[in-house]
């Protein structure tokens, strides 16, 4: 089921100047959501403009939350919402992260790649060993994780997350990778991951969000696939990274 709903915001938590977490309450949506899925969101004052795809950051009981970085008019309007304001939403959309028992998993996120992996981490099967490696431009972009990197060195290791991946794989015997973040990071990570299974949640500009417009494609195999429909989670090995 895909719902088109207008829900009151039960909590709008501003994490810092750039990031806000919006929480809504809805039984149906909460029950149908899984890590990797996203919703199309819109602030009420953006009527007539397109919805914006935002990963589901978590479900607790009947509550659903979204972790949003303000980067343009759509996300600015979302981040400006306050408790009690309404949120227009369509979802849940897309596929889920596949999960496997008894794995040693490395989760790698960059910037707004954080939310889907943070939720996935909390939902991996018992017995999974997990390391969540997260990076961003500065300490403002860092949230709860196991290892962090910043470009400016203001928190965690200075440099790119991908600098740390190989040593981590070796040290911990990683045999499963999940990732979400900027294309450059994902591309590099795919090189580094070698034979290890690697699932990546991709971003793309979207119009319909439900598979009808073919606007959100990425090159997969010898054709294109839709991020909103076949994705957002893809097997990283099938993506033709050279075209991205």
């Amino acid at each position, binding site marked *: 089921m895909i719902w088109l*709903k207008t829900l009151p915001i039960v909590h709008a938590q501003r994490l810092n100047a750039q990031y806000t977490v919006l929480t809504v309450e809805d039984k149906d949506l909460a029950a149908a959501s899984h890590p990797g899925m996203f919703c199309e969101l819109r602030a009420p004052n953006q*009527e007539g*403009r*397109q919805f914006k795809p935002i990963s589901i950051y978590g479900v607790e009981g009947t509550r659903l939350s979204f972790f949003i970085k303000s980067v343009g008019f759509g996300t600015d309007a979302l981040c400006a919402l306050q408790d009690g304001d309404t949120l227009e939403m369509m979802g849940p959309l897309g596929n889920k992260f596949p999960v496997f028992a008894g794995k040693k998993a490395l989760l790698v996120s960059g910037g707004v790649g954080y939310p889907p992996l943070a939720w996935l981490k909390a939902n991996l099967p018992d017995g999974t060993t997990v390391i969540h490696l997260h990076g961003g431009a500065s300490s403002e972009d860092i949230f709860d994780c196991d290892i962090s990197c910043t470009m400016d060195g203001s928190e965690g290791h200075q440099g790119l997350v991908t600098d740390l991946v190989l040593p981590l794989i070796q040290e911990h015997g990683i045999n499963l990778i999940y990732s979400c973040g900027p294309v450059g990071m994902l591309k590099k990570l795919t090189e580094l991951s070698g034979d290890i299974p690697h699932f990546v949640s991709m971003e793309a*500009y979207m119009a319909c969000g439900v*598979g009808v*417009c073919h606007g959100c494609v990425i090159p997969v195999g010898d054709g*294109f696939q839709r991020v909103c429909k076949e994705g957002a989670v893809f097997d990283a090995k099938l993506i033709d990274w050279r075209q991205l």
Partner: protein
Amino acid sequence: MMKTKLGRLALDSPITVASGTFGMEYFEIMDVFDAPILPQDKLGAYICKTITPLPKAGNPPPRIYETECGMLNSIGLPNPGLQCFLDEELPILLEKLSIPLIVSFSGGSVDEFCMMLETLEKAEGIAGYEINVSCPNVENEGIAFGADSDVLYQLVSRLAPLTNKELIVKLSPNVTDIGRMAKAAEAGGASSISLINTLWGMAIDWQTGKARIPRKVCGYSGKGVKPVALALTYQAAQAVSLPILAMGGISCWQDALEFIYAGASAVAVGTSNFTDPGAPARIYDGLLEHLKAKGSGIKDLIGTVS
């Protein structure tokens, strides 16, 4: 009240959906969607995404960009090709649809267009065709045939004798004289015209100097094109007596009504489907209520702008 005619087709509603903006993927989700996204009791016809002789993968991403007043697209007509359409998509469409099916198609030469039409004619259940000679996002198909009135006339006059079904020619707005293009379609034997396809459009990332869409120039649609679409609908209506299926930025029933006054016998909702999947149904409801209050039918208003 809402009944209208588009050439050889009698439609129960003047509201349709624009090719390519309401893909048949909606059928997969219509039962799982809690909004009325394919309200067949409110739509006059269903127009499918443009198909071409052979499968097309479409253009490399990014394919879309939202501008302040609409959107740019360079989808590039991805489609499974004629054969797969007939084998796989058409049966599903016919099973799901209770309203007339209009098949949009395009080709790279007059012969290809003719071959498409002849092949489609053999299939059951198609009510009409929309000849897409106006897609700005492909090299070979499309706009080359819609940019020159002589070329358009040649094409349409070859196609018209091949069918007794509704034959709509979809015109490009990127021309000097829309009236002349409409006349060429009429002279060639089209039974109606539709317009507008997308306008030329472009956007550039000012931070990097990179075009937002790799092909640079692509198609512009949505709210920002409405005044242009309305002007061209009016100009076309003045030039020919063919019925017009009009589109371009329609997002509410008042917009639809403006196009009807300008000369449209029916309208299509395109880009608004993305910002409001319930738009076609809402437009139908609003228009019906207005007509009831006014006590007139669609047919009384077509082309009556003063």
